[in-house]
């Protein structure tokens, strides 16, 4: 009996913690939505965050995308060489990148770059009482800090994913040309013949979902930091892990819905 009590208690503890986090996330999301209609958020901060998020993350998105496209082509290279089905190269790489690998990898990189940075920033503001200072100056932190970040992350991740798609295809085409000796025009013809517009839009829908979950998660962990600098470190860590879980859950749900109804 007592041998079972300890793991059971641990399990109960994690379940309670899980419910606690989920509740906190729902609360942040609810407050964001309430500040959106009617709009009560700070416009200047929103523009500033669009700019910051975009500038901060486009280099890593371009890098991630170039390599992703290249790797997809190299992976299918052996098969294409054996069969001579070069027309499939563009379709295969394009399908995988646009619908699945592109948004997920870019989302994970984005979470590591922008999400982690956001948790650290808000967490530091929390432990140095800057959040309290805002409230004391009659400014609602949700309207001034959180909603601008939410909007910036959702919109920018969609735009960055579109940009990433383009660079992934360029990476794929370059690799075909340079490594597999398949003309880049053949690669792009394969992409276009594949009718991948649906996949492209599914990918963007995923990016929007990932952006929303990354922003809600990173803001929640940032605003609930306690315990000084160590607490900030712990929160950043938790935010990155939870964001990654959020990305896979959203990926599953959107993929399922898209396959079912499209």
């Amino acid at each position, binding site marked *: 009996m007592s041998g079972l009590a300890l793991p059971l208690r641990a399990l109960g503890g994690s379940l309670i913690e899980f419910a606690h986090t989920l509740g906190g996330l729902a609360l942040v999301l609810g407050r964001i939505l309430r500040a959106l209609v009617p709009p009560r958020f700070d416009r200047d901060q929103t523009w500033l965050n669009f700019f910051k998020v975009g500038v901060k993350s486009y280099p890593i998105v371009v890098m991630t995308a170039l390599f992703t496209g290249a790797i997809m082509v190299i992976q299918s290279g052996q098969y294409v060489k054996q069969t001579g089905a070069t027309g499939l190269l563009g379709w295969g790489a394009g399908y995988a990148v646009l619908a699945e690998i592109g948004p997920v990898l870019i989302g994970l990189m984005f979470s590591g770059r922008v999400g982690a940075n956001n948790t650290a920033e808000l967490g530091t503001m929390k432990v140095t009482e800057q959040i309290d200072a805002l*409230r004391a100056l009659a400014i609602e932190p949700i309207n001034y800090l959180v909603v601008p970040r939410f909007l910036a992350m959702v919109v920018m991740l969609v735009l960055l994913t579109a940009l990433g798609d383009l660079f992934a295809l360029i990476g794929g085409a370059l690799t075909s040309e340079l490594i597999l000796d398949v003309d880049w025009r053949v690669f792009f013809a394969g992409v276009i013949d594949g009718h991948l517009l649906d996949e492209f839009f599914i990918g963007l829908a995923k990016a929007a979902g990932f952006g929303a979950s990354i922003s809600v998660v990173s803001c929640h962990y940032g605003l609930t930091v306690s315990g000084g600098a160590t607490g900030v470190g712990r929160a950043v860590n938790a935010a990155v892990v939870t964001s990654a879980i959020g990305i896979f859950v959203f990926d599953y749900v959107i993929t399922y819905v898209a396959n079912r109804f499209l």
Partner: protein
Amino acid sequence: MSTRRPRETEQPGDRTLEVGEATALLPALRMPEERATVLRVDSVTCWFGDHCVLDRVSLEVREGEVVGIIGPGGVGKTVLVKLCTGLLEPDSGRIDVLGNELGRTGQKDRQRLRERIGLVFQNYALFDFMTVGQNVAFPMLQRGGYTAEDVATRVQERLTEVGLPKVQHLMPNELSGGMKKRVGLARANINDPELIFFDDPTAGLDPVTSSKIFNLIRLTQSHRNSTCVVISHDIDRMRPACDRYVLLYKSRVYFEGTEADAMASEDAVVHEFFRKNEGIGA
């Protein structure tokens, strides 16, 4: 009793005011009992976990007063200030600020109330993503209705008041602790709030600057007729600034009154805190 003294060079508009007229204009000249209550803390209790930080604390601050709150470090002075500004919620008891019961104000009303209150944080709490000038201007810009010129002029004026006329373009992390404190003071002051809380405004400052800060608090009170609540352990330097003191000790209000009351008291703890030359606690 006639207060009208004949003067040789009496100008129009230069006549001496009758006592009644003067006190109507300047609440500070009225007897304390006649002035409106600006802050009333009524039997407030606050727990952190199983540690009772404040136990049935009550106090009252009237319009135009400068009240000093003293007590050992960790007794709950900062917690009390955060309760009074609605940054923390008490577990029981009632707090009235500027005629509003804090526990019953909605988000809108509370926001409007906060525009009338200033708060200087113990740990500065300057926005580290803004310059000093932007920090001080922030409350004014958020309130709106001022031209850029108004804002610039007033920011410069208030920074000069705290002895920092040349730091506008620096970032907060380029300042020393004492300078940050004074910038926090300028920021809390910029909208001329009716009630200002100073949480340990002179901690870590040199004696000369400390004295200046307390003078400034006194000036703020008399020029703008703000009511001030000052937390400090620097009893010697806060003497010229404060009208009245509240001593927090062991989670309770241990003593309340003027310095003369404290000196007349027989209590050893009260004497310890009001003794000259040394302050206790942090």
